[in-house]
């Protein structure tokens, strides 16, 4: 057996002077994007007037950061501490002293409330069952019946893998756009994708980038072409949305409130990652089904990652022991960005800030979805620290 060092040495001694970068570059050439401006239908949003809930919502530029040293230990979440984090954070955000009143400022008992989670990385790095349980408990106390609560994301299989099952959440609807049936198929008896029945073609994000997929990929994209349709879950099924993403990086950027909403609410996203990642994160959220319905953002940073995201790479998972709360998704994302950046620099993943990583925040601010400038954000910190004798 040889070590990696010995292995490299053996290669080096093996007469490799002439071996320089074998050329798989051709395939890269075909995939690489450019920074040329790509046309989208973002101007369409101007046709729709804003309402009082429209982003950035009731508290523009305001973020509450709650740290709790007991919320996780030995990789086990402490539900009651997490509940306390959400409770105290929401009171601080709203200035209320009664938690029920705080919730009632955002949602009504007659409304259908969608909890937009991020379950793509299994139990290891998805929105935790514990934080969603806390939100549901508090909503119920505030008068929202369980039958009016929907936990949703793109894929039924992901929701299931991350623990969002009817067994764990009796009486709560679990909804997905891309549905996999019990037989493991994404197609119904007529050979039509279940996902096609879940999209609303009245609402779409058009971008001049063509999506083409093979048969194995199509169930995860629902449709090809230049249109990305909104899920009917957000356009029709729910009246209000509470966004509950996970504290994760995406390269030198982050995948928090805006990314969770944008890429989680539309179809045909594969085409958007390469050329339009930042634009999609910002612009999709400017369309009324999201802009006018998302009333609150709660970032689950009890456990998160600082590299390797959005995948769950164990060596990059960390316990931030933090929850961020705000109505302004741009401001919340900016604070989350700073937390993750600090950790990345501490861990020597990167040396300094890279402005490209927060390009989407600037775009979102330009679209008046919130505040991206750090100096204009009002951050309040709550430290729930246990003091022992």
């Amino acid at each position: 057996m040889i070590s990696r060092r010995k292995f490299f040495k053996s290669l080096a001694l093996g007469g490799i002077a002439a071996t320089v970068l074998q050329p798989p570059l051709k395939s890269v050439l075909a995939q690489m994007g450019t920074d040329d401006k790509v046309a989208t239908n973002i101007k369409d949003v101007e046709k729709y007037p804003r309402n009082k809930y429209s982003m950035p919502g009731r508290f523009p530029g305001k973020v509450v950061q709650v740290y709790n040293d007991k919320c996780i230990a030995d990789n086990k979440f402490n539900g009651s501490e997490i509940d306390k984090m959400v409770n105290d954070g929401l009171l601080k955000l709203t200035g209320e002293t009664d938690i029920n009143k705080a919730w009632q400022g955002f949602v009504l008992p007659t409304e259908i409330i969608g909890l937009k989670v991020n379950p793509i990385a299994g139990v290891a790095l998805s929105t935790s069952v514990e934080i969603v349980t806390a939100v549901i408990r508090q909503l119920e106390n505030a008068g929202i019946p369980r039958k009016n609560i929907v936990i949703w994301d793109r894929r039924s299989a992901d929701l299931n893998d991350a623990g969002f099952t009817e067994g764990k959440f009796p009486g709560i609807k679990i909804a997905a756009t891309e549905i996999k049936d019990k037989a493991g198929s994404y197609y119904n008896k007529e050979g039509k994708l279940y996902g096609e029945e879940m999209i609303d073609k009245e609402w779409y994000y058009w971008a001049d980038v063509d999506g083409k997929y093979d048969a194995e990929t199509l169930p995860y994209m629902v449709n090809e072409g230049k249109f990305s349709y909104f899920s009917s879950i957000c356009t029709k099924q729910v009246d209000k949305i509470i966004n509950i993403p996970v504290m994760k990086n995406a390269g030198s950027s982050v995948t928090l409130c805006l990314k969770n909403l944008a890429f989680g609410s539309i179809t045909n996203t594969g085409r958007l990652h390469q050329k339009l990642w930042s634009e999609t994160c910002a612009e999709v959220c400017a369309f009324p089904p999201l802009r006018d319905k998302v009333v609150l953002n709660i970032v689950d940073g009890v456990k998160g990652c600082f590299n390797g995201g959005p995948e769950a790479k164990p060596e990059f998972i960390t316990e931030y022991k933090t929850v961020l709360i705000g109505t302004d998704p741009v401001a919340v994302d900016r604070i989350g960005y700073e937390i993750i950046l600090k950790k990345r620099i501490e861990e020597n993943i990167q040396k300094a800030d890279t402005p490209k990583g927060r390009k989407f925040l600037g775009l979102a601010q330009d679209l008046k979805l919130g505040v991206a400038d750090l100096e204009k954000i009002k951050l309040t910190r709550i430290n729930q620290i246990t003091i022992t004798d």
Partner: protein
Amino acid sequence: MKKLLPYIFAALLFNSAALLAQGGFPELTASDVQGMEVLRKDYFDGGSLWGYIDGGADVYLEYGFKKLLVQEVDINNINLKIDIYEMNDAESAFGIFSIFSFKCNNNDELPCANCVTRYQVQAVSGRYYISIVNQRGDKESGRLALSLAQELVKKTGEQQFQYPSLFAREELFKYQKNIKFVKGKLGVQNGVPEWEDLFSEVKSFSFYVTSVRAGKESINAAQIKFGSEDDLEKFYSAIGLKTASDNSYHQTIKEGVVCGLWKLNANEVIFIEAKAGTSGFNRIQKALDNYVKE
């Protein structure tokens, strides 16, 4: 469990030769390991990787992804998740491994580049990148994950790739565990994020890079290959230099960062970068200069 391990190894050894002979995709089967139950087995081809890791798929696709086998197994109540990525070539597999390896322990029992941490074993064997995650993080689970990784590496039957001779230079050799193979813009984002702007106008490129520790600072040295001469020129421009006509050394200092370049040919350079004033920079620069001129 300790008692069980020798049997597992024996079973693994026995079965590996047969599976290799079949030339199939490397995988673990219930007959490989006593008491192992395969809870999940899913293949993902091409873009269907988005169905598994959504946006996380992009970096694999950019590097050149062919196929993934996801297996979840249970061995005496120890749950392990195994991802076996088949990439287009060994460089791509090493590239993915290199950007996702962090604070590693190397294990000599694996005959290839590997990264062993409490919860994960990563290894790269030829064009296969292997990740085995255990949920418990204890020694027993770690040992089991390692034994499974050993078997999978054997099953790949792959020759290991070779890297540029530059990195065998004495001055860089001891930093070989830091070597990354970076390909495409997402590769830069994940591998050397501070270089993102340098490549923003460059369409096609790949490079090997290593980081030399110099006190509290580091010196990055890379061998970069561009898809075209035009791309090389754009890189020179991003550094703030005119494209060189020969292989002599040129450098700039911008915002406290020194960037130096040697042009090897029409689409290839050696690049050095560090914070201005970093101790040891001149030594590495001289070593690279000698390499270029040899």
